[in-house]
């Protein structure tokens, strides 16, 4: 959840001041009645306790404003133009009615431009507007005011993107967990089938599919799915790391510990990943080719060939066991 802090509406405050008793940091007890942001922890206890509803919790980072269509913006701008002109005319006339009309038109102009894409002071539109003032630098512009606004209003953006990074990190953690669960459940399902526990096997397969759905969604939300060319490049990098760096170390460790089965599995995987990397490179070069390609998978070691071999070059099983894709 977005970080928030407490603010007090002085007009609504009836000085019953339960907030003083519940605030854990003394942030509400100030001589000018403005809650001290630097002390506020965002706990919300004061807002809950206030009997007059005078305290609100507001976010440090506001959500983006509602998008506006171009046609609405241009219609609103046309009215804005007319209201501003009327304000200007009324300003040149004397009497209370003229003064009221001048004010009235300003208020309408404000409301109209608010709905033409300038609702939020922290919006990109406002930022662009302020930046354009600095760029154009008309004579007499109070530059310091513009600079201060740019500094104050957008300083929390960084905080906002840090929050994004945390979520991105969590998405990738969840993706790793769900992916593992998927393979784990499939392994359990295979075992259950061997034991004839068919209902349990079914549940494992269903749950494995569910975890795949979660993993796909999380991976996508983390922004990891790119164009196919980008995805192939990513696959090449992953396979290369595995066969060049990861598995050689693993094989060494397994041999040192005398774990022959693991050493063999790691060796098969290492050699297969090298083949995969090579195939991915070829696929990337021929990405736009329409000529159909077939792949043959060795069901024992994971080797992939583009034609059926006599026997697997990695593990040696006969070629007729290969699975066609």
């Amino acid at each position: 959840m977005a970080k928030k802090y407490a603010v007090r509406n002085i007009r609504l405050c009836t000085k019953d001041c339960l907030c003083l008793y519940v605030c854990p940091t003394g942030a509400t007890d100030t001589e000018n009645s403005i809650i001290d942001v630097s002390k506020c922890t965002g706990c919300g206890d004061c807002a809950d306790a206030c009997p007059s509803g005078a305290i609100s919790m507001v976010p440090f980072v506001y959500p983006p404003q509602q998008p506006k269509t171009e046609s609405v913006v241009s219609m609103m701008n046309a009215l804005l133009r007319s209201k501003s002109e009327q304000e200007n005319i009324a300003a040149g006339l004397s009497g209370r009615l003229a003064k009221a009309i001048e004010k009235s038109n300003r208020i309408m102009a404000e409301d109209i431009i608010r709905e033409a894409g300038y609702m939020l002071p922290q919006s990109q539109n406002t930022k662009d507007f302020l930046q354009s003032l600095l760029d154009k630098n008309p004579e007499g512009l109070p530059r310091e005011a513009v600079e201060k606004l740019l500094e104050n209003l957008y300083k929390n953006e960084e905080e906002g993107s840090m929050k994004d990074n945390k979520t991105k990190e969590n998405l990738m953690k969840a993706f790793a967990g769900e992916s593992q669960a998927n393979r784990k459940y499939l392994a359990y399902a295979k075992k259950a089938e061997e034991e004839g526990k068919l209902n349990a096997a079914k549940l494992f397969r269903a749950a494995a599919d569910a975890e795949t759905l979660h993993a796909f969604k999380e991976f996508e939300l983390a922004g990891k799915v790119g164009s196919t060319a980008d995805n192939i490049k990513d696959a090449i990098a992953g396979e290369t790391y595995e066969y060049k760096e990861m598995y050689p170390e693993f094989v060494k460790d397994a041999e040192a510990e005398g774990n022959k089965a693991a050493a063999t599995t790691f060796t098969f995987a290492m050699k297969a990943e090298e083949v995969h990397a090579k195939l991915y490179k070829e696929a990337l070069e021929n990405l736009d080719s329409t000529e159909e390609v077939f792949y043959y998978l060795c069901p024992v070691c994971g080797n992939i060939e583009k034609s059926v071999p006599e026997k697997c070059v990695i593990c040696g099983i006969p070629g007729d066991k290969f699975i066609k894709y």
Partner: protein
Amino acid sequence: MAKYICSICGYVYDEANGIPEAGIAPGTRWEELPGDWVCPLCSADKSLFVKQGEATSAPAEKTRPVIDTPSDTQELSPLEMSALCTNLARGCEKQYKPEEADLFRQLADYFKSVAAPSKDPSFSRLLDLVEKDLEEGFPNANDTATQAKDRGALRALTWSEKVTRILKSLLIRYQNEGEAMLENTDVHVCTICGFIYLGDNLPEICPVCKVPNWKFEKVEGR
């Protein structure tokens, strides 16, 4: 006996009931109400009432001209930029950011100070613009916002259109009555929607935007 509804605030004048507390007897016909009678809630004049059951707007007898849409690269005039800045100042106020609100107001003052004054200001030019808004600006903008399902824009348009209709009736009265219209009466403006109220007894809430009346501002002479 018919009913007439105020197009600004929704007040209903029922001929059968009259308004006995204001000396209008039950059974008083709409036509019998004096010409200067105004809505007791929002002081809209009789022309702003519609008979219940009749279409609210005039029949579309003529196709209205479509405004040549201003291009997107249109530069805002200094006064428009000033309104943009006072709007953003209000936004900062709502977020309890008094420092930023002051900075935007400083910018608004700057833009207002560099805006060229109107060349030949007159009440009749105001009335012309108000009529053009009501005939073209608002209907066109309403259609566009309805099509885009932009509820926010429709809200702003509904308020401004009502306020503009009140402005039109005030300007017509002013043409006929002159300064006498303002004698011994207060002028208030709703600071939220721009509604203008002539009279001493403020309505409890703004008839257009429904804020409580302490959001109204009394206009002092100049």
